[in-house]
């Protein structure tokens, strides 16, 4: 340990005369010149702003390479990730809850196979009713599909338009271009569910009343 290494850096105190300024009645009038300049406003939503490359937006998931290790679930500070067993998949896949996600993307950093990724998409606007808010809880879809949708629509919206919940744990994702992804959720957790028993019915007490 270097105890006497550097002496205390001298605080360079600047003289008062440099800090002080003179008050003036006239000088503020210079501000009026901006009346005739062009505004700096970016006219959203008519003008589009591209988010920076690698802006931390919604997730993507390559279902083929995901090994279901739950590293993402362990690192998640918001516990937004839940391993989900689906019919036809050998390993569970993360299901991400955007009612919790903080978009820190630590989960992407720790993903050992690179299956979990993120896109620059950031728009997700819904109504406030319980069935609208279902959209905030999804299993991410393939990055190629997200890219394709971005190219098609030219904006950065959430790729899924509506999540339809059929009975028996069957979920249908209606994508923005009209295609559908349909799968059946068998259960949650690290261990495979004992049987393909249906998910307990979505609770109704918590939500806002429906008209």
């Amino acid at each position, binding site marked *: *340990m*270097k*105890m*006497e*290494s550097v002496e*205390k850096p001298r605080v360079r105190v600047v003289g008062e005369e440099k800090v002080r300024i003179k008050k003036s009645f006239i000088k503020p009038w210079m501000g009026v010149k901006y009346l005739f300049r062009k505004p700096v406003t970016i006219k959203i939503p008519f003008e589009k702003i591209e988010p920076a490359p690698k802006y931390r937006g919604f997730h993507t998931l390559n279902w083929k390479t995901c090994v279901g290790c739950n590293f993402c*679930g*362990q690192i998640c500070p918001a*516990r937004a990730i*839940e391993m989900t067993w689906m019919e036809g998949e050998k390993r569970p896949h993360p299901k991400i*809850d955007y*009612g919790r996600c903080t978009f820190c993307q630590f989960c992407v950093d720790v993903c050992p196979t690179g299956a979990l990724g993120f896109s620059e998409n950031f728009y997700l606007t819904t109504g406030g009713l319980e069935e609208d*808010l279902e959209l*905030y*809880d999804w299993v991410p879809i393939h990055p190629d599909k997200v890219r394709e949708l971005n190219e098609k629509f030219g904006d950065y919206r959430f790729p899924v338009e509506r999540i339809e919940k059929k009975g028996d744990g069957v979920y249908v994702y209606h994508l923005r271009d009209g295609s559908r992804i349909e799968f059946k959720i068998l259960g*949650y*957790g*690290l261990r495979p569910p004992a049987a393909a028993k249906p998910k307990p019915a979505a*609770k109704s*007490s*918590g*939500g806002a009343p429906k008209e």
Partner: protein
Amino acid sequence: MDMNEKNVEEKVEESRPELPDTREGRLVKALIEKAPYAEGSVRRERRVEFRVSVERIHEFLELASETFEMLMQISVVDWIKEGEFELVYQLWSVSESVHAFVRTRIPRENAKLPTVMDVWPVAETYEREAHEFFGIIFEGNPRLGPFILEEREYKKHPLRKDFNMLGHVKAIYGEDFDRYDESKTNYVI
């Protein structure tokens, strides 16, 4: 260039009583001569450490306030296994540019100690906060009571280690406080 680095082995060495002949060492020595009941050590450049028993903490801090002009914070650490609260008074000396930890330990039950408001008026805020979150009573501070929290949480002193946060959340917001699925709350990180 970076003064953050520090090895664990070195830390053990430093806690020996002999003080290095540096600015920090001399400072600690001078203070300990005045207050022989305190233990002092130098942790690293610009960080010194004192241990004082709770009976003489006020006396010591009054003495220390001549060198250390500012009380930056009162940090409380709840060592639940030992059944003690550790109070760390974080002091900063503007004239010497040294940060001091003044440590004292009090039992968890019936935790009481004198206030240092008369030395540093700002201690009022820190003590209110420590009282609120840990339930420590600072004798002489007139404003102990709900400060940041509301009454329900205030009564539980939430930063204590034995405060069951998830249980409290479930009690207030219902078992189903997760909109989508409850099983997320079951697994352990």
